[in-house]
């Protein structure tokens, strides 16, 4: 045991020394690995079966390494007729060969790969796992990383998308929980979310989605298909994430160091690159890494500790709100006292809290605006419908019929299309277009009721002019209020054209956090309350109009 401690200590001391302060010649990674393995093998006889044996010693002793790989991740890890193939199983085999042991592959998925490591059911995981700062506390990542993916936006070849500047107001299909969702929504782009990435190519083909965002490693497989590649292309990429093999935190010492050195050697010698070419996955990153790890600065035993050689983990820890602890306590209280597992992600991180606040703001603007627009269009179209001027009456009638024939979503899209033809996309333009569309749709129906009331009052030989109009408004009060309520109820649909109201904001929040059930339940309660408040105000407004009509 003392010998192990000395080996690890000497490696750490070497790794900690700055490159320029070491004496030449530097130890090569090959020499360091050979020394490490020799040292490990030399103690096998005495320590192999003892409890508390290090993982490298155990692997060498049993002659077998248990590696967690994926069953179905095209090109990277697949299982067919009991045979595993793909980039990652081949890396596992290459590592085992260098260690002089056999491989026992174990099936893992995104949810099980870390727990299986922690419970010592596997020694190593090579399973499409992105290295981020959150996971650093759960496993020990092997560096240098064996691959790097990025999220790419894929769309039809004839659609001109050069970058984020062309994405505002567009809808992108993605998957729930994808780490890149937060960045997508921060560029005024809407998300249509699916549970599984596997469905995205089909949704692109049947044109349910015009654009889809997912890891380039995922789309690599589909771009092999010529038909797919002829129709679609990669538009641009973002959110680069290094992929790391990982071992458990406990008992990791020698195994992790050995794998670090092997990974370094594999990059330098182009082993990773060769395996990647065999499986037809993207090689740009691996080519750059081969050059980097062949350079004198990195091609030394301590290269893995040099920040100029290794990539940093992706920093995905979001800043918590000042009251996130209180929110956690509330969630805990619900769980302990009522047995209810609720999740309130919108209050926990600054980015989610900020989205929530702006969502509430835009919702209020939208509801107030939709009510005002409905009232204005109702009065305008009502006056035109009740006019004695035939062309004006016909024009109003035509507008009302057209608006009644157009489904709500189509009217919104038309309003947004016209607005975007004159103004660049912005949240306020989307909100403005939605207000006009909701006002026109509901105002048309209410205006028709006012027009009909004016006709009926004329038949009753009542007064003309402004007095007649006011009486007609009073007579159609219940219809007017019904369509005001309808306008308030319709406001969430504005999210369809990119208005960042509360539904939109919470969809964005749940796209990068958990707690969808609780979030949408709270949203439903919020909007139902908003509508009930409008119903209450509408009832008061109707009583006012009817009282006014009675006294006139």
């Amino acid at each position, binding site marked *: 045991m003392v010998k192990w401690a000395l080996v690890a200590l000497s490696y750490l001391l070497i790794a900690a020394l700055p490159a320029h302060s070491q004496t030449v010649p530097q130890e090569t990674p090959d020499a360091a690995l050979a020394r490490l393995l020799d040292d490990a093998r030399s103690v096998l006889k005495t320590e192999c079966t003892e409890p508390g044996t290090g993982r490298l010693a155990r692997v060498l002793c049993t002659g077998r390494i248990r590696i967690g790989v994926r069953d179905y991740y095209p090109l990277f890890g697949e299982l067919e007729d009991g045979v595993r193939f793909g980039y990652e199983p081949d890396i596992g085999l290459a590592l085992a060969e260098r260690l002089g042991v056999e491989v026992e592959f174990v099936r893992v998925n995104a949810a099980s790969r870390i727990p299986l490591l922690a419970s010592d059911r596997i020694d190593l995981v090579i399973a499409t796992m992105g290295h981020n700062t959150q996971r650093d506390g759960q496993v020990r990542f092997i560096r240098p990383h064996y691959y790097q993916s990025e999220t790419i936006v894929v769309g039809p070849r004839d659609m001109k998308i050069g970058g984020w500047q062309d994405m505002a107001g567009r809808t992108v299909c993605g998957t729930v929980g994808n780490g890149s969702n937060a960045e997508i929504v921060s560029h005024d782009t809407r998300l*249509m979310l699916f549970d599984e990435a596997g469905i995205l190519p089909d949704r692109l083909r049947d044109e349910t989605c015009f654009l889809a965002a997912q890891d380039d490693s995922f789309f690599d497989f589909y771009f092999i298909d010529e038909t797919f590649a002829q129709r679609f292309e990669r538009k641009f990429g973002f959110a680069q994430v290094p992929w790391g093999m990982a071992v458990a935190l406990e008992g990791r010492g020698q195994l992790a160091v050995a794998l670090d050195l092997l990974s370094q050697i594999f990059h330098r010698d182009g082993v990773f690159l060769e395996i990647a070419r065999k499986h037809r996955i993207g090689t740009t990153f691996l080519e750059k890494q081969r050059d980097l790890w062949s350079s004198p600065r990195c091609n030394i035993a301590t290269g893995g500790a040099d920040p100029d050689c290794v990539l940093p983990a992706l920093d995905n820890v979001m800043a918590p709100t000042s009251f996130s602890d209180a929110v956690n306590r509330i969630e805990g209280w619900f769980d302990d006292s009522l047995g209810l597992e609720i999740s309130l992600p919108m209050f926990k991180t600054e980015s989610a809290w900020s989205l929530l606040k702006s969502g509430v703001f835009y919702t209020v603007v939208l509801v107030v605006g939709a009510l005002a627009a409905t009232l204005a269009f109702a009065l305008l179209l009502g006056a035109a419908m009740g006019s004695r001027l035939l062309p004006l009456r016909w024009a109003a009638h035509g507008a009302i*019929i057209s608006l009644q024939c157009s*489904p709500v979503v*189509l009217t919104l899209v038309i309003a947004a299309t016209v607005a975007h033809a004159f103004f660049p996309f912005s949240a306020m333009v989307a909100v403005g277009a939605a207000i006009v569309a909701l006002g026109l749709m509901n105002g048309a129906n209410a205006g028709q009721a006012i027009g009909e009331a004016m006709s009926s009052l004329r038949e009753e030989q009542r007064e003309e002019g402004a007095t007649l109009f006011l009486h007609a408004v009073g007579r159609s009060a219940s219809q007017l209020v019904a369509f005001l309520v309808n306008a308030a109820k319709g406001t969430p649909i504005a999210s369809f054209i990119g208005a960042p109201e509360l539904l939109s904001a919470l969809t964005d929040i749940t796209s990068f956090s958990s707690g969808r059930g609780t979030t*949408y339940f709270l949203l439903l309660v919020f909007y139902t309350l908003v509508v009930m408040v409008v119903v209450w105000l509408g009832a008061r407004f109707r009583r006012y109009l009817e009282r006014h009509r009675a006294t006139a």
Partner: protein
Amino acid sequence: MTMNFDRLFADFLPQLLAGMTVNFEIAAISLALGLLAGLLLTFGRLAGGAVGGTSASLTALMRAAPTFVVMFFLLNAIPRGATLFGVPMALSGVMVVALSLLPYAASYVADSGVDAVQQMRRGSPLGALLILPNLARAFFVLVMSSSAGAAIGVGEGIAVILRHAEQYPALGDRLLLFALGVICFGIPLQLGFAVIRHIQRRLGQRMTRDNAGPV
């Protein structure tokens, strides 16, 4: 790209009509379920007491629930793989939209049902029959509202229009395509309303004749 009229008639219109059948399917499912739930609420409200109060409150809540939010709630709140008494509860997109329209349909049926029963009690069976044109009107409102399905990837009529509109960057072409969509949705809607008006007129004439009695 300028509008290709050959393609429009060969490609767009058949797809739009196929998409519109999905809108009608959603409306039919929603109205059928709404009839079931709405009639229960009607009987509950007529029963009075606590049951009546509860039914009236439920109707008010359903009236206030925004369809679009209900749709997203259903889509996100039901976990994948959830079962009810051992039966899988995975909902298709069409069913999610149909169920999201259920609160509106049920509250509308409940309100119309209570009106109809009150007409019957006043001795006007023909007045009670007005529930039929009211249900037809609700059906067409549901057809138009089912366009919300476009937001969750349901291949209904509006989704077809939007898909084709993406291929025409020019504002004029897009507006022409949208106008075609309005006409295609408008024809069955206006025909439906004409039938409703005809039924109402016939019922009104019969009511007047019955009230006048034999001459």
